[in-house]
């Protein structure tokens, strides 16, 4: 597939993006752009595919690489570097997710890239940044490393036992979303000034950035925010509540409207103990604790469906704790088309999450599934003016490659279309060499 074959649609139509890096932290930023019409070329190594391809069942990879073109280039080879530079001359945004400083080591410093394309936006995504202590830049990082170093684990979970990892891949997704918005902001700056930009996204720093007032609380008052499970430290009528039919709901009673609504549901709206204007039910306050006790009992006395409906009807925020199975029958998810099906060349009909968010005038769309390792090498290079002969030569020298089985070679599920067969294979896999 050629770059010019990408359909015209969406708010990012006409934008060309090159992305490389493993699973989520860098690639998800590019996937969001691809869903809104950008032409995204995903570049993998010639000797090994993206780690997402080689998992047992590469569901994540094939969900988050739709709408993209695929190349495999050996950047350590001087000719591979030249091919890469040729592509970057036609590119608006480069997003790379290698360890801090790797691009400079490869001879692809910001300065060198701007010498070839002065308006290029370069987004470096790494565990600990592009500058700072050398020992840290070299550090490998994955989602949990970012959650730990980013202070995120220290405020999650219950006081005991150990700080928890939050699923799925909170740190990688936060990082990817930072890469996405900052790339677009930098693109706007580059268009305005004619000068490119280099953005240094560090996983660890992203996690610190998303902690509301907690860092300031520590610096201001010396208080290290405790791990508090599902509860709030300062107020109640907030948290997980067990309902009569064994299902859980989450209730969040904050602000005056919800507080009055809750009193009404609990039959306390005429009780003079509670003033007209209530913002929060404070922990430790006698009258507030009475409301909490009554709320717990109310939930136990009713089915979750009724609790959810009745509290919401009275303006009290409340939701079932949905999982992927229960959301399938939820009327709102169905009405808005939260899930969508698509056809994958290799895996057939698949189902996953649709475009988010929805745009009204230039909506995003899916035009194709994830493609094989190196699938678009030939088309893209011929588009850049490489002859067939030259392309063959690059393959022979190992500058370009297409790995066997589309790069999904560790996936035992790749030829399977039927879910029972996948289950059987997953069982077998436990006893088999990987």
């Amino acid at each position, binding site marked *: 597939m050629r770059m010019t074959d990408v359909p015209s649609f969406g*708010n*990012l139509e006409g934008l060309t993006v090159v992305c490389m890096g493993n699973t989520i932290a860098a690639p*998800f930023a590019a996937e969001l752009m691809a869903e809104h019409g950008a032409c995204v070329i995903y570049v993998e190594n010639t000797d090994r595919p993206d780690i997402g391809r080689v998992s047992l*069942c590469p569901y994540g990879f094939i969900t988050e690489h739709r709408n993209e073109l695929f190349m495999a280039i050996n950047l350590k080879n001087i000719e591979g570097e030249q091919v890469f530079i040729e592509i970057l001359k036609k590119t608006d945004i480069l997003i790379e997710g290698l360890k801090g400083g790797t691009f400079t080591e490869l001879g692809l410093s910001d300065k060198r890239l701007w010498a070839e394309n002065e308006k290029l936006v370069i987004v470096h995504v790494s565990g600990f*940044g*592009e500058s700072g*202590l050398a020992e840290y830049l070299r550090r*490998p990082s994955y989602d*949990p*490393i970012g959650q730990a170093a*980013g*202070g995120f*684990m220290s405020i999650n979970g219950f006081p005991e036992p*150990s700080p928890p*990892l*939050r*699923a*799925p891949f909170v740190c990688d997704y936060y990082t990817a*979303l930072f890469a996405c*918005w900052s790339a*677009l*902001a930098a693109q706007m*700056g580059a268009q305005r*000034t004619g000068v490119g*930009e280099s953005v*240094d*996204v*560090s996983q660890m*720093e992203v996690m610190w950035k998303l*902690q*509301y007032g907690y860092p*300031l609380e520590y610096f*201001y*008052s010396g208080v*290290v925010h405790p791990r*508090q499970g*599902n509860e709030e430290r300062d107020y109640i009528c907030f948290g997980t509540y067990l309902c009569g039919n064994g299902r859980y709901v*989450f209730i*969040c009673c904050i602000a005056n409207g919800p507080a009055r609504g809750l009193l009404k549901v609990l039959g306390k709206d005429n009780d003079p103990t*509670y003033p007209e204007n209530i*913002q*929060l039910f404070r922990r430790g*306050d006698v*009258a*507030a604790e009475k409301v909490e006790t009554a709320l717990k009992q109310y939930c136990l006395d009713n089915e979750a469906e009724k609790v959810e409906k009745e509290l919401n009807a009275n303006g009290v*925020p409340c939701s079932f*704790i949905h*999982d*992927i199975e229960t959301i399938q029958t*939820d*009327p*709102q998810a169905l009405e*808005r088309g939260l899930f969508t099906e698509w056809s994958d060349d290799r895996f057939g009909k698949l189902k996953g999450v649709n475009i988010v*968010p929805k*745009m009204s*005038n230039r909506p995003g769309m899916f035009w194709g599934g994830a493609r094989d390792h190196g699938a678009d090498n030939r088309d893209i290079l011929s588009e850049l003016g490489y002859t067939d002969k030259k392309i063959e030569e690059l393959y022979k020298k190992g500058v370009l490659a297409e790995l066997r089985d589309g790069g999904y070679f*560790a996936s035992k599920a790749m030829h399977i279309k039927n*879910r029972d067969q996948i289950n059987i294979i997953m069982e077998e*896999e436990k006893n088999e060499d*990987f």
Partner: protein
Amino acid sequence: MKISEVPSFGNLSGIKVVCTGNNVAAPFAGYLMAENGAAVICLESTKAPDSARMGGVPLGFMTERRNELALSLNLDSKEGQKVFLDLMKNVDILIEGYKGGTFSKWGLCDEALWEVNPKLVIVHVSGYGQYGEPEFVSRASYDLIGQAFGGYSACNGERGGEPSRAQPAAGDYFPALFACWSGLAAYIGTQTTGKGESVDIAQYEALWKVQWDYPSFYFTTGKEKPRSGAGESQYLGVDIYKCKTGNIAITLCATGPIMRLCKLLGVEDLSEYEGMFVLMRGEERAEKLDKMLADYLLTLDAEEADRIFNENQIPCSMIMSPKTMEHHPHALARNLFVEWEDPRYGTMKAVGAVPKMKNRPQQYWRDAPGYNADGRDILSELGYSEAEIDKLFADGVTKDLPNQGFRAAQLPCKSN
């Protein structure tokens, strides 16, 4: 302060944004733009200030409303709507965080806004979206409601335990980041085509969107991934381990680190682990290696383990908190934290610019503004005379609050 007085810097210099909503889900998107040079007006209701101001010491507000202007308007009144439309003529991006359909209810639907400014980018952030089942659209939502309906709580929690919550406010920060990138994408599309855009962000959908293989795993196998505490549901070696003192996070999901770990632990027959990508739960050699790893870590302090494992290029980190991070050499080398003077609360310190921009960096030029701090300046910039502004104050279309809207959260009950 006037819109035109915002200093020139950053990648978003010249972009004008109005942001209205409570706490995090909508405002944080505007705040990130403000850090990068956009002129951002924090628009608050005359009926109640942003609830983030209401804390005893409103630390989240102080941190995440820096660099902004403040204006108060009564959008539920004819006059307030007229002022709002005048404001919309002059801005590029509107980010609003009210319940689905609220702006339409006020007569401020997308079409009405495009009538005064055809190139306006409108970003709606709500719990359940702007359309769908009416009963859901009108529902209130907060962080945790989003995490529950967004399938996020169901993924989190101990093995076999209750569903849990990702702190702080993951249910709000995710939609905020979606609002930020999609607001900018829509702006780029608007510049290309000359036609504005309306973006519909439902908090719960933003959360479903960031779940890697959890949804497709279910759709393909019919099975749900179980909650797995700190660990991974399928793999060992991705977990928080106990050390002699403290804890440490480790991630083993590539051949290199697994082989280096084997050598570090003195595994005799390395060929047994050759080519191994992950440590599959239930597999004998994987369970054996995980046990050796856990035993080894119990002999080390967390600091020691962190040093040894990173020297061996095995991904690992200590569990950091603001206390341990404040003087961390890498945080100091990269200026992770910045200090500023707040006229009300004195010296404040919080997280600085993330990510780092090389050519047009972020700046902090102002602390979080008081309620309606810039009301008069902005209205006069829109062409309102002093007399007209006084009338708007007199009619309650705009107003000031005592102590600039900063006040302790009210006590909930008379008995307190």
